[in-house]
């Protein structure tokens, strides 16, 4: 007899361990159940009922009525003839209906008073009770649409100023530099027209952002240098000009490069005019005019242009009258 209280204590401990272990199971899912041997369908059913009842009770204790309702529904499906389970299910569903009514009322009142945050929380509580509630879903959709439209409206009014420190650090705040970084990337990737158009739009919106303008100018000049190295002198010169305009001022290095390009392009057009002159005086004149636009001090082009124009006038004079 002296061992009996000890045995009782041991069993009680074991039961406590059982309850503790069971209480830790997630409330929104049934336990993984190993089926007994084949042919014991009723045993499986009995175990499943016990498991889902436990989950339903745990969910209710945690205040998750929607999960409790789902579990009671499964219990009733497994044991349709048991009135006490149906009563539990009905009680949970009644509590859900009441909660939904209360929270909808609170949410609509908050909405009326213009407190969208409080309305949002109330409507989320409605959906936590009844995840398919259309009224609450509609209110939340309306609120989000208004919120996003407001964000868009704010953005449309002004382009965000660039925080170059954030840009360099690569922190999440670097998103503020996206408006600048995007067109720079377009330019680097070879969409020169698109990149320049967007960079110009950026400078127009942020004319006083000196740091950004220096960065833009440098990027455009880099692209100009690439083209210059590939022999595309005319495009390179045009890009240097745009780099100066976007930066707001030139640099000594760019001045040197542009000067060198001016002379090279002027000579190219001079030679082109020479080739054209034998067969097409008008074209030759255009080429020498272009040569002088690049370098007004190109004496060879100036002389040839003067002579060509005189020759053209002479030709007009001897042209047969119609």
């Amino acid at each position: 007899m002296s061992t009996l209280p000890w045995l009782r204590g041991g069993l009680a401990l074991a039961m406590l361990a059982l309850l503790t272990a069971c209480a830790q199971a997630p409330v929104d899912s049934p336990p993984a159940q190993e089926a007994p041997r084949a042919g014991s369908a009723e045993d499986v059913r009995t175990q499943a009922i016990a498991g889902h009842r436990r989950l339903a009770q745990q969910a209710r204790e945690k205040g998750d009525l929607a999960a409790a309702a789902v579990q009671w529904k499964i219990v009733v499906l497994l044991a349709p003839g048991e009135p006490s389970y149906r009563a539990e299910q009905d009680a949970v569903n009644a509590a859900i209906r009441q909660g939904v009514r209360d929270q909808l009322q609170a949410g609509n009142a908050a909405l009326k008073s213009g407190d969208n945050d409080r309305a949002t929380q109330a409507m989320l509580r409605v959906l936590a009770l009844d995840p398919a509630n259309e009224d609450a879903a509609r209110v939340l959709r309306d609120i989000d649409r208004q919120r996003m439209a407001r964000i868009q409206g704010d953005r449309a009014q002004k382009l965000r100023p660039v925080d170059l420190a954030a840009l360099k650090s690569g922190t999440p705040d670097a998103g503020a530099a996206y408006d600048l970084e995007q067109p720079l990337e377009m330019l680097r990737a070879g969409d020169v027209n698109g990149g320049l158009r967007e960079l110009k739009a950026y400078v127009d919106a942020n004319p006083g952002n000196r740091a950004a303008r220096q960065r833009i100018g440098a990027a455009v000049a880099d692209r100009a240098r690439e083209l210059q190295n590939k022999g595309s002198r005319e495009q390179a010169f045009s890009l240097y000009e745009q780099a100066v305009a976007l930066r707001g001022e030139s640099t000594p290095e760019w001045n040197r490069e542009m000067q060198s390009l001016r002379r090279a392009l002027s000579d190219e057009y001079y030679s082109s005019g020479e080739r054209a002159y034998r067969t097409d005086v008008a074209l030759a004149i255009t080429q020498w005019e272009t040569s002088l636009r690049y370098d007004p001090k190109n004496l060879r082009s100036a002389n040839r242009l003067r002579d060509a124009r005189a020759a053209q006038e002479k030709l007009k004079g001897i042209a047969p009258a119609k």
Partner: protein
Amino acid sequence: MRTPTLGAALVAAIVLAGCAQAPQRPLPAPEAAPAQEGMVIARDEAFAVVVAGAGEDLGVLAQRYLGDRGKRWRIAEFNDVDEVRPGQTVVIPLKVTNPTGVYPGGYVTVPILCYHRFGPKSSQLAVTPAAFEAQMEYLARNGYHVISLAQLAGFLERGEPVPRKSVVLTIDDGYRSTYEVAFPILRKFGFQATVFLYSDFVGAPDALTWPQMKEMESSGLVKIQPHSKTHANLVTRLAGETDAKYRDRMRAEVDTPVRLIQDRLAVPSLAFAFPYGDVNETVIDLLKRDGVQIGVTVTPGGNGFYAYPFMLRRSMVFGGDSIDVFRTKLATFAQAAPR
């Protein structure tokens, strides 16, 4: 004295074994033998309570009861298991029990990640191949489900549920590095992504070519979708531009890439990414006429079931993002405010 001790320990062991969740180890690849249909304990229009038969795993059960192997996650989440073993009792949710993903503690949100360029040199908009691979590895190892924008549209507009840890991948502009760097990594992980192309970019030295886009589309992993014609800011008016001229220009910005993608790739446009993330009602009107259902901005954050489909939040991934920073952009659950 020894009998009660052993007895109690035995009872406790049995009890604990009964209550504890079975370890969730992935099962080996299924044998070639066909799966045997397990016992159905009970069934109505909403649930089936079944005992998994020999060879029946989550995929087989999803195919059998939900008509789609890809919906295995619905059974897994409902039963809080990674896999099922033969003889295990599971509940198959035949109907959607929570179309909005709202729970007492908060609600499910779907983050849309936005990449641009990939390359060896990291910059704000350029992510290195190693960083991109590490990010995809992080998603794969941490139970994220990469879903398509079409699935997200189903969640927002038709209450079709998505996995609890869903994320959408998007890549803007159409840089060639999408094909050369990102595509092989996406293929390695079997992840889907949407490439938003601005059509004037095609032909530029660093742009995707149509054959590259076709190959990615054919893989079933990548969808090419429109991102405007010129990448101009769609809400900015040109100097002196009238309403009519603005609308015409916007029509070209919307229609040109939509038609080009349809003509060159035979792909209809479901989604549109707004250059710089900016949009207004004029543009949305035009998109709706073209059958577009979703528009993405660059306002960061996740998208709950209630998100306005034409102004979805999207978080940019930057070249300098560490894995810790990347993780902060994976907002898959928003906590509810305390009562």
